[in-house]
């Protein structure tokens, strides 16, 4: 519970932060809300020599609307996401998800950027971002690039972010007005990672599902985009059989670890169960 020594840096701009990262190399880690990094430092599972605190970097906070997109700054906190009227109207699944992360104290500090960038499969927002087909903006010394959330996660704590890059903002295509959505999370207690969780968005037209997307949390080394599961819903009335097919398809792509949350078999089945429940709830919310 006592971290190793480290140098603390507090740059004022993205350029400055990126320059520090380049200069300090692999022993430097960007620090956002700190709710993943600080605990692993306290247990000495991680001992970075330099922390580059992004809290003072201007322009990394805020939620704005662009044509067809919502853009969220990486340092926007979970609390700010859950309280945003703009997100409540355009991307209500974000509010539903953020309210299931940690507890109020954690949500005051924990950021969206930190949640999606560090590659912890237990984090909730990555699967939601895959579900929504969000794009992450990464800035390094050589410039800026966008990476789709669906391409970002390579393994546990292993992402497409290069050393020297900082994730600055998240661009999310706004789903059609009247879409149904749900984030169903099974957890042991408040503040825990999911046993399994499922993010679903879908649209219904004349009683048929015309669009669907499903993301899964904490049932593999990475968050999962359950493409086939969503495909099983298209064109159906989201009847019992269609939902069962989607759940079964979702279960097949899981590869969870056995841990205190339960054996792998259970967590796979719970992924399916969360998919079922999320679809049912999303359906009940969708305008037809």
């Amino acid at each position: 519970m006592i971290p190793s020594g480290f140098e603390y840096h507090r740059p004022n701009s993205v350029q400055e932060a990126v320059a520090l990262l380049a200069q300090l190399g692999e022993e430097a880690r960007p620090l956002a809300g700190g709710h993943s990094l600080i605990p692993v430092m306290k247990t000495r599972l991680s001992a970075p020599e330099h922390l580059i605190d992004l809290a003072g970097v201007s322009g990394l906070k805020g939620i704005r609307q662009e044509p067809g997109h919502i853009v969220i700054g990486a340092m926007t906190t979970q609390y700010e996401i859950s309280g945003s009227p703009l997100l409540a109207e355009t991307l209500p699944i974000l509010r539903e998800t953020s309210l299931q992360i940690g507890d109020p104290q954690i949500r005051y500090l924990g950021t969206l950027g930190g949640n999606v960038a560090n590659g912890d499969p237990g984090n909730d927002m990555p699967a939601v971002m895959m579900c929504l087909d969000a794009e992450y903006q990464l800035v390094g010394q050589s410039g800026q690039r966008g990476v789709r959330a669906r391409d970002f996660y390579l393994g546990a704590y292993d992402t497409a972010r290069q050393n020297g890059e900082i994730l600055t903002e998240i661009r999310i295509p706004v789903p059609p007005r009247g879409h149904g959505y749900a984030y169903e999370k099974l957890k042991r207690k408040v503040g825990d990672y999911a046993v399994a969780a499922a993010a679903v968005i879908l649209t219904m037209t004349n009683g048929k599902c015309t669009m669907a997307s499903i993301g899964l949390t904490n049932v593999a080394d990475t968050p999962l985009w359950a493409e086939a599961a969503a495909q099983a819903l298209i064109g159906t009335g989201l009847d019992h059989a269609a939902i069962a097919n989607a759940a079964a398809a979702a279960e097949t792509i899981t590869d969870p670890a056995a841990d205190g949350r339960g054996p792998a078999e259970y967590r796979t089945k719970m992924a399916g169960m969360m998919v079922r429940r999320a679809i049912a709830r999303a359906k009940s919310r969708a305008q037809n």
Partner: protein
Amino acid sequence: MNDMTPTQAERTGKLEGLGCRRKRTEDIRFTQGRGNYVDDLKLPGMLFGDFVRSSHPHARIKSIDTSKALALPGVKAVLTAADLKPLKLHYMPTLAGDVAAVLADDKVLFQNQEIAFVVAEDRYIAADATELVEVEYEALPVVVDPFQAMAPDAPVLREDIKDKMDGAHGPRKHPNHIFNWQVGDKQGTDAVFDTAEVTTKDLFVYHRTHPSPLETCQCVASMDKIKGELTVWGTFQAPHVIRTVVSILSGIAEHKVHVIAPDIGGGFGNKVGVYPGYVCAIVASIVLGVPVKWVEDRMENLSTTSFARDYHMTTELAATKDGKILAMRIHVLADHGAFDACADPSRWPAGFMNICTGSYDIPVAHLEVDGVYTNKASGGVAYRCSFRVTEAVYSIERAIEVLAHKLGMDSVDLRMKNFIKAEQFPYHSALGWEYDSGNYHVAMQKAMDAVGYPALRAEQKTRQEAFRRGETRQLLGIGVSFFTEIVGAGPSRNCDILGVGMFDSAEIRIHPTGSIVARMGTKSQGQGHETTYAQIIATELGIPADDITVEEGNTDTAPYGLGTYGSRSTPVAGAATAMAARKIRAKAQMIAAHLLEVSEYDVEWDIDRFKVKGLPEKFKTMKEIAWAAYNNLPPGMEPGLEAVNYYDPPNMTYPFGAYFCVMDIDVDTGVAKTRRFYALDDCGTRINPMIIEGQVHGGLTEAFAVAMGQEITYDAQGNVMGASFMDFFLPTAVETPKWETDFTVTPSPHHPIGAKGVGESPHVGGVPCFSNAVNDAFAFLEAGHIPMPHHAWRLWKVADGLGLHA
């Protein structure tokens, strides 16, 4: 007399004495962050200690190289067993008559065992230095499963005592065997079982868990080499016992050892024992001559200092076809880990497990307990219960449910049929206890009426039918438990700690202006002693509770006591408090008579004063008497107004209660939701109903935690799993059910104010109630006994095994 004269009720109310819902006086500082805990203590020149701990659960230590750590700037010392050996401190005695390693000598016996103690200028350097100590291990085969511990080919764990086949509690059958303890009539019990119409037999495993107080174990040791005096501030539930132990171990005379327990952030049994951290901090301070602080972190607390339970109880009942219980037989395999460090009274190797006949009139019984060593942390403390009482009550209350199911009888009816009857008290149980008082039928009926028991069973029947028809995926469980605790240890004829009888004490001193300072031998860890002891004194002496300061924990000022655990503070120190107050009142009576110029037989006590019999307007208040005690006494009387009492209780007290739990279980996820929990407690006279309710809320919350998921587990290789709050289930307000409390009052006949103690009852009664609710939900599907803890995934597996996911 005029209209302004306060009425008797007003005078009583002003005292805020017995029965008053008085707000806790200590909360003023706690809620403002002004508590004074061990880690708040900062002394000039203070150093910090940290442990090098074993990565192996069982290994020989080939070598320890401390040179790199010692070379780190800021490191002052690194202690190993080699340093402690010349002082004979590499092992320390345990309360259970065993010895425990302070620092591992030759080999380690559990993961995270203490190997070396680093002392440095600050906490960070100490932590850095622990990583620089190089330990070379030779791994040895591991014993994790207690059922394998006594196998003929099991690896010998305790080489230090392998030839000592006569243990503290009799002969040992195997090098990994600690004791065999038997109570009751074996032949008579066996004979009943041989011919009984109905018998049950189940293995009830009460899993290993941990008291997990929010404040971990910690201390500051400060040796004053000029005065030759040692002061130790620490998280001690029993500070005087610590002082005696420290004196014996260190050789420093007891009057030169000052032990101080400041505010404590929860104990629950975790802070009764002596831990290597205390010993090492003391040794380091003696060696270095400066204060040394040691503060455990969360993982150290959960994985090294005193676990609870780990009892494997094969429980049998014999009964007639119509449900009269005839006999009980239990064999317990007790996993004590690497050392026998149970915190029980010396002569009770399995605590008061022989309370296992519960609230029932069972004519004959036999209990046998075998303790074994395994490669796990040592302990076996009473986590929010009297010694092994939760284990005992869990065993009987599960067995009752199993028997009722087998008989096709409602379990409440079975309990009612077998309860000890009110007229049987004092009741002598088959396993040797004398229950002081009880009225079980009345308590159970009141609880049944409160929850609407028949309607609940009807609802359950409807639900089961709907479930079978596929209309719902939710099962309904109704949990019942009825418990009898045994607390207030205890009479010195059969209870001692390291030879010191388990009395307790109170000293009360009334100042000339009529305010009071009182000191006890107990130590609150959150129980609210400063509030409740003052209420006892207020009623006994007629001084408002607000004018009474209660102090505990400083062994220089408080009278010797055995500390706070096993719900003993109210039964023992609370009794001492009342008795000391009565000594003062007897003297006050003589002073009052002197002031009123009448015979002491002509005055009588009236709330806050002595008045002349028949002349209520002629009186002297206690406040007036206090002043007179310092300037106007009867001729020849010693001045002052104070008293001390050391109370050796004539018996234990036996609180009891009836609990009901209503639970919905989602068979598709295994998630259980407690819809309702009702707890009726009878703790005798109620000193402060609000504190009682708070105690019940806390105890039930810990019961909920333990029953529904709180555990310390080890993998097959002996690695301790889940020793952090990520995995160790500490429920928050969100998970915790809403608690309904209720009560009956059956005073203890032998306690001066009739109080019995309550802090642990809700835990003792709560755990089986939750477990019974889970088991009850599945019972109609013939699931058999479902073991704790009832995690969602485990319940899902039960449902899966029953084919409910097909």
